[in-house]
């Protein structure tokens, strides 16, 4: 039975625990990434997302639990797993003194692309990243967006079936972010399995078939974004704007009715009131994944 299940999962984590001294960064995490799916790992800073990503390449060794990547059990078979997946790190670790093409050439070797198809792999990666024109530019002459595209292209040289993206668009301006989303979406449509950690809700909502919301090292909710929104935030929210005292008043009213609220700067969102909050004189809006996130983790995003 285990065999059939594993063959359908690109990533399978069960009860994974990782401690750093007194801190438990990952605390009994279960996580599934089905083959061909794009799964988002969503959580505030310090939720354990990056530690989880590092555990998938055995750069972090879990204290407890089971990790399987593409059917390979980690950490013992981690090299095999790494040979079949691509990794886009959160922190840019390109060789800045080398050119775009040289960076790709080094990784074509590291990923053991056979000599005969190395040139073709590099050309393909350059074109995926739309960097063919900048092949001879030194990396430190590239913009932030280009560098991030190059990091993604570098992870795709060996045509991996699984791609790990750790905060792929952090620190980029909105237009560049859109470009990267289009690129990731294209990979997903080509059947690459993707696990993406992010703390941009919109990113997860747009790209992911499923999300796992993490808080304090645990998965607090798992499912497709639409379903999580329906389950946890209800169909609509009433957003009330007003003075701080008015907002406190609204929160008090909501509490007496047993509705959930969420403070967003100058407003309060009242959730799960099922239409009964209409007399609060707020604006009716559609709920989103951010509402779910805040309700479940108690933390505002960025």
């Amino acid at each position: 039975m285990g065999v059939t299940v594993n063959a359908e999962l690109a990533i399978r984590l069960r009860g994974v625990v990782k401690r750093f001294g007194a801190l438990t960064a990952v605390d009994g995490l279960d996580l599934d990434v089905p083959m061909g799916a794009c799964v988002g790992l969503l959580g505030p800073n310090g939720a354990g997302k990056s530690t989880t990503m590092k555990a998938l390449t055995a750069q972090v060794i879990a204290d407890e639990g089971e990790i399987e990547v593409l059917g390979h059990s980690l950490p013992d078979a981690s090299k095999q797993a790494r040979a079949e997946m691509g990794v886009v790190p959160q922190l840019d670790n390109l060789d800045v003194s080398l050119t775009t093409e040289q960076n790709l050439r080094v990784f074509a070797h590291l990923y053991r692309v056979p000599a005969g198809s190395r040139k073709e792999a590099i050309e393909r990666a350059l074109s995926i990243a739309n960097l063919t024109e900048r092949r001879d530019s030194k990396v430190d002459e590239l913009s932030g967006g280009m560098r991030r595209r190059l990091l993604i292209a570098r992870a795709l040289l060996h045509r991996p079936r699984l791609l790990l993206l750790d905060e792929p668009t952090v620190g980029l301006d909105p237009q560049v972010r859109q470009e990267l989303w289009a690129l990731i979406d294209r990979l997903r449509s080509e059947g690459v399995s993707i696990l993406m950690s992010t703390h941009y809700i919109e990113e997860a909502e747009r790209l992911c078939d499923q999300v796992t919301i993490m808080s304090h090292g645990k998965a607090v909710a798992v499912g497709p974004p639409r379903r999580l929104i329906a389950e946890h935030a209800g169909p609509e929210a009433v957003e009330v704007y007003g003075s701080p005292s008015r907002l406190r008043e609204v929160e008090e009213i909501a509490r007496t009715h047993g509705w959930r609220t969420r403070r967003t700067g100058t407003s309060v969102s009242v959730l799960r009131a099922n239409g009964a909050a209409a007399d609060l004189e707020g604006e009716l809006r559609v709920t989103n994944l951010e509402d779910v996130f805040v309700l479940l983790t108690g933390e505002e995003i960025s």
Partner: protein
Amino acid sequence: MGRVAAAAPRLHRLEVAAVRGVMVREIINFSSFWRSSTFSSTVDPTIYLLAFGFGFGSLVSTVAGYDYIEFVGTGIVATTVLFSGAFPAMYSTFVKYQFQRTYDAILAAPVDTEELVTAEALWISARTGTYGCVPMLVAMVFGLDPSWGMLLVPFIAALAGFGWATFGIFIAGRAKSIESFSYWQSGLLTPMFLVAGTFFPLDGLPQWAQTLGQFNPLYHCVELVRHAVFGLEGWVDVGHVAFLVGFALLSWRLAIRFMERRLIL
């Protein structure tokens, strides 16, 4: 496991493909900084050679049965190996994991720490094998006679260089900050560099210093190079080779152990 694992070739420990991949990175990088690296690795020892050769050489004509230029022109090979082996290994290793995060990127590919350390050390060892000969060639201009045995010198320098490279990686793997390198440099490497029989023979030193000198890999490198150039001495030189091999193996394992501790959390 099923279909997935069966499709890919099995990977083993310490694979040539992984070691070669890391070396390719070094070689491509080297093409952009070979001038400065070659300059610092060869000019320093050449200055020592000339300073001692002219300065000291004017006071003494022969040392331990050799002309002084012969004595120092062969001994200097070990100094070059230390300068172009241990120091680049210490600094570049530290910079690559601490500031450039290069090793993070490499270890996310199918390369293990053992392969990474081995590749870095082999590449540095190839450089020490080459650089090690430069001051000896300079000494030839000043009167060191060529001999067939000199053809062995690059290999001796590469063997000793592998030991020093891995020793440097070991120091970098232990270091909490780049400042802590000063303790190793001043406390260990500088005394070793001087008490190696490069510029003056060990037998003029107090007994305790002579004994300590026997445990100095540089001393064994110096002796081996001199014997290669002026005539090998059988089992004595087998002993020197064995010491250098032992030093290289021990440093290699230590470097891997401490780098794993540093890179794998």
